[in-house]
């Protein structure tokens, strides 16, 4: 078990390393790059260009540039923002913004689980009944509605119709104004949460139905165990694919965060990435992408650990 996890951990690190190399080299394919973004119209001259390139370290050979950046990466230094926050450390800004994204992610995950579990279980228990059809229809529309459309629809319905400050967007730290913090994060978290809830409840229904059809459930019923126990037993056996889906959602959290943060004007990692691309601020784009891959690798590792926890029969490696 331990050897297996160590192997997975090392593979995760390797993935991160290769991914960082890929993103670094892709971002350097195009000539010009950040220098173009820094030079104002009409001030273009070769000498200034050369100076800037030197200052940014872009005149070094490729492998030295990468070695430099990678060395920094290991020390937690992601370089300096060139355009967006001129001279500011990218790592520091990412850390600051990561907090916002993490709060959004946790709140939305909580909403997703609160919706998905009752809905998925009810759907499986009352299969093909009215409630099941309603839940499935809602889940299907949830999977199909893009986050940006749902976000805009919520702003129109709630922000314009009910409470203006709910749809206003922006971010207030929890310590300053807890109620304002909640109001501002609620709508974006609902947008992200319902999206995940749809896929989680669909998977939960399928795998719960599968578990309910197996022999141990029949045995339990035949023994006259209370229905509650039977359901809990089945649920436990249905959890593995569900945890996988939850892990996928959590690992790709930055995908959803990009859209919701832009719509609701939240200063998180997702909107940082988009701003970085607009401004052609390479260290910012590199930094956020590496963090995104890091999150996914870490979540996958966590999911692996959870498998063994949920189902003790799962033993990795040579079964010791």
């Amino acid at each position: 078990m331990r050897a297996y996890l160590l192997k997975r951990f090392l593979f995760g690190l390797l993935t991160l390393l290769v991914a960082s190399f890929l993103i670094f080299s892709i971002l350097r394919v195009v000539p010009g790059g950040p220098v173009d973004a820094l030079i104002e119209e009409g001030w273009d001259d070769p000498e200034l260009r050369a100076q800037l390139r030197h200052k940014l370290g872009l005149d070094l050979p490729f492998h030295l540039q990468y070695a430099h950046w990678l060395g920094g990466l290991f020390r937690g230094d992601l370089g300096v923002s060139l355009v967006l926050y001129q001279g500011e450390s990218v790592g520091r800004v990412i850390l600051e913004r990561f907090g916002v994204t993490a709060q959004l992610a946790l709140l939305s995950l909580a909403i997703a689980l609160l919706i998905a579990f009752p809905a998925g279980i009810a759907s499986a228990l009352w299969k093909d009944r009215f409630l099941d059809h309603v839940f499935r229809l809602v889940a299907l529309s949830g999977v199909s509605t893009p986050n940006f459309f749902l976000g805009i629809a919520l702003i129109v319905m709630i922000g314009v119709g009910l409470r203006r400050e709910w749809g206003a967007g922006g971010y207030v730290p929890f310590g300053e104004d807890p109620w304002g913090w909640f109001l501002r994060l609620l709508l974006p978290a609902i947008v992200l949460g319902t999206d995940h809830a749809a896929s989680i409840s669909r998977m939960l229904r399928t795998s719960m139905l599968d578990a309910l059809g197996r022999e141990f459930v029949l045995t339990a019923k035949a023994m006259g165990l209370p229905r509650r126990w039977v359901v809990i037993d089945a649920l436990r056996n249905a959890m593995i694919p569900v945890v996988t889906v939850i892990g996928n959602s959590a690992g790709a959290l930055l995908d959803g965060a990009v859209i919701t943060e832009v719509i609701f004007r939240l200063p998180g990692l997702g909107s940082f990435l988009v701003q970085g691309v607009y401004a052609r601020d390479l260290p910012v784009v590199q930094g956020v992408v590496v963090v995104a891959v890091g999150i996914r690798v870490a979540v996958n590792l966590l999911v692996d650990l959870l498998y063994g926890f949920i189902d003790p029969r799962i033993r990795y490696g040579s079964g010791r």
Partner: protein
Amino acid sequence: MAREIQSGEYELGTHRTLLQEFWRNFRRNKLSLVGGVIVLFYAFLAVFAPLLAPYDPIEQFDAPRGMRNPMPPLSRDEDGRLFLLGTDKFGRDILSRAIYGTRTLLQVAVGSISIAMLIGVTMGAVAGYRAGTWVDELLMRAVDIMLSFPSLVLAIALVGAFGIGKIQVGPFTVSNIVKIMLVIAVTYSPRFARVMRAVVLQEMAKDYVAAARISGASGARILLTEILPNTIPPIIVQASLMMATTVLTTSSLSFLGLGLQPPRPSLGLMLNEARDYLFWGAWWYAVVPGGLITLAILGFNLLGDGLRDALDPRQARRRR
């Protein structure tokens, strides 16, 4: 699981071709028929866009005195021109823009899925046929690493690398739309590679492959003429489900301003423009493009699910 045998199902002497069998299974699920109709509707819109659109999608019309753009649905301008779904902020007809936007969206989606399929199927076929060798190991590790990037983040970073708008690669100019197709194709090809490898492995274990090998067919011949035709159904299912994802990603990129560029009509971009007019109550501006994107994703999801169930009825019975 035991189930009632339906009349006529196992009648002696009836013979159906595979296609008839497939159609019988497909038709049984009403939702997949709905999906099929939706997809046909979009194909119709895309193909006949020039005939269906009442106006030029980039022509600007002046609002009559006392009104201003964006005009609500069923408005007319001074010359009596009718705008069925209203106009946008520049006075362009929303219906025409929506029709042309749908056309572009489908162009990008079909184009990028075709490229992704070409790359992914080749990778997967080679890896599957050479399973267990270093070629397989190399390809599949590459796929793992590609999949460790959250997909939208990867697409955004790639756009960031090549720049927004059309790009210059050496002596060639790559138009913006082709660039977006390539970016999305690179992002999603690993998923096709995984499916293809699994299917090829499955087929390789079957007797007909052994028979072909005994009769002296070369490896390339077995792969291309024996195995490949049998991998088409699962790849089609995957393509249909991936169409839904691609429509979402394409319109997300456009929504963020990183995809299709104005004045080319694009549904994602229309939705983004509409954000500034929400507080004025210009709901039609957002609802038309948002609804069209949502319905397209729903259609491809339903069709994909239906195709999957029809091609693999045993799995489907368990699922339902």
